[in-house]
């Protein structure tokens, strides 16, 4: 009886303390993340005049998003983000798997290579973008090196050329984040029981066969994490574009992304500079929010089903 009373009084204290302990975090998070996010979704159904909400407009902003002149920008940016995603999957996560596999086979020295490969990932994308903008500039060191090696002649203009600019930005982004797949894949490879590899070796599997037929199916959780992270990061791409190509995604919108387009609509650098189109911006934000959340959930489910257990 006394014991029971003591636990209930403890529980009552805990309930009260829990509220007090959780309140500061919940208040900050709720006020600066949840509240503006919900308000943005709600606001996308209204017409706007500057920063002022006018009247309920149903899906008018959304239909405006897909037709001229917004449609061209939207589809262009969407295509760049999709290309960016596949580029990162191939360049960053694909090469990263190869590097992780080589480090796994070698065993010794892995920590050194992991640390070097990961280093650019702790730098600001702004710094990485600015650094590569200097290195790739006409007269810069990459042009000098390529000319010296006889691989290229004359002035290097990859960032000013609408056919090569997007690919160059994707490569810089992959350089920035390469260490991430290397770390996640090596952690995954170390979790696989060595007997699995020994059995495969006895069956006469070579290194390449072992990577693709034995290791890769067992790496599904790692691949799932990386695919989901790459998806979220790709569709939030902004910093590198802004620093290297400007907020218009130069040359002539060839490197424009959904978030740079969103930024121009929301903060007034689209069309006549200084004029914002908040309704359109919020509709784009809501679309992106849906694409990101549905895409992420689908990916998590997809990889969850394909996880192989031993």
């Amino acid at each position: 009886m006394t014991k029971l009373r003591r636990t209930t009084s403890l529980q009552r204290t805990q309930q009260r303390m829990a509220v007090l302990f959780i309140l500061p975090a919940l208040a900050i998070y709720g006020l600066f993340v949840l509240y503006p996010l919900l308000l943005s979704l709600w606001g996308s159904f209204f017409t706007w005049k500057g920063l002022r909400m006018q009247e309920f407009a149903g899906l008018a902003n959304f239909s405006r998003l897909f037709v001229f002149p917004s449609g061209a920008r939207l589809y262009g940016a969407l295509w760049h983000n999709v290309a960016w995603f596949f580029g990162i999957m191939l360049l960053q996560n694909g090469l990263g798997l190869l590097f992780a596999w080589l480090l796994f086979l070698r065993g010794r020295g892995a920590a050194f290579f992991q640390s070097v490969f990961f280093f650019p990932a702790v730098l600001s994308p702004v710094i990485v973008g600015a650094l590569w903008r200097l290195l790739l500039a006409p007269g810069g060191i990459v042009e000098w090196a390529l000319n010296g090696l006889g691989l290229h002649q004359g002035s290097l203009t990859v960032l000013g050329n609408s056919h090569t600019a997007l690919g160059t930005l994707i490569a810089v982004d992959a350089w920035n984040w390469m260490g991430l797949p290397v770390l996640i894949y090596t952690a995954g490879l170390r979790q696989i029981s060595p007997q699995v590899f020994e059995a495969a070796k006895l069956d006469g599997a070579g290194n390449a066969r072992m990577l693709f037929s034995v290791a890769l199916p067992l790496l599904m959780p790692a691949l799932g994490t990386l695919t989901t992270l790459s998806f979220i990061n790709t569709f939030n791409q902004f910093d590198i574009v802004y620093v290297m190509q400007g907020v218009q995604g130069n040359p002539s919108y060839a490197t424009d992304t959904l978030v740079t387009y969103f930024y121009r609509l929301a903060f007034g650098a689209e069309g006549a500079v200084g004029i914002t189109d908040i309704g359109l911006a919020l509709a784009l934000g809501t679309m992106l929010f849906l694409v990101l959340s549905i895409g992420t959930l689908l990916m998590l489910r997809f990889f969850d089903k394909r996880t192989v257990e031993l």
Partner: protein
Amino acid sequence: MTTLAIPQKLARLPGWIVLLVWTAAVLLPLYVLVVSCFKTTAEIYDNRLGLPRSWALDNFVRAWTRADLGHNFINSLIVTGGAVALTIVVSAMAAYPLSRYRLGWNGIMLGLFLSGIMLPIRLASVELFTLMRGLGLLDSLTGLILVYSAIRIPFAVFIFANFMRVLPSELDEAARMDGAGETRILFQIVLPMVKPAVSIVAIFTAIAVWNDFFFPLIFIFDDRYKTVPLAISVFVGQFRTDWGLVFASLAISMAPILIMYCLLARQIREGVGAGGGMK
């Protein structure tokens, strides 16, 4: 034995070469960055790969004073320090009852916090801007600290809850018997036991906040409150032809992270495994 060992070593050669090529791809640009800081723009053009002819600090001095990077540097230190401290304190406080009390509603609350790990807050920046303006937090370092803490709280609560959950329950029970209050149990017993979580949260919050560019871009207009990444984005255009100055300002702005990385490379590597998601 030896006849077998040599071909095996040879077979490993291509793998070695691949790893060394990427090592060069990472280190060469950084080498160019560091040596260019000490060169004049003319020397950057005619002595590209070599060490600087004289190790003059002129570029650093100009970046720090004339381009006023020192000022931005202090702003970034204040914002990063403030956000790290606030995130750690409020997240540890929230994670403690959520992971160690039986409340009935802690599952839902934890879910609410964790959902924030994936929420794309940039897309709410218009409403966030209006809110900040209403609260008088535009053009202020406090505003940035609050926004960054809000964004990092979900990840921090996740890490703290994971570490606190596995502590033995005798720990706080014994302290309670001795008459310690809940606040004391959290800050003097539980928090010291989850030091690895504190360092993971501190490191990843510091990296994310120091590097961020988006929120200063939309919330800060006054030069007095600009942070390093925002200043850098301006420099690159403004001092386009003064390469030595831009290289030096890049080096200054990455110095704190570089030093931290050299000291904590192992914790950072393991932290990525523990928590993922740092962007």
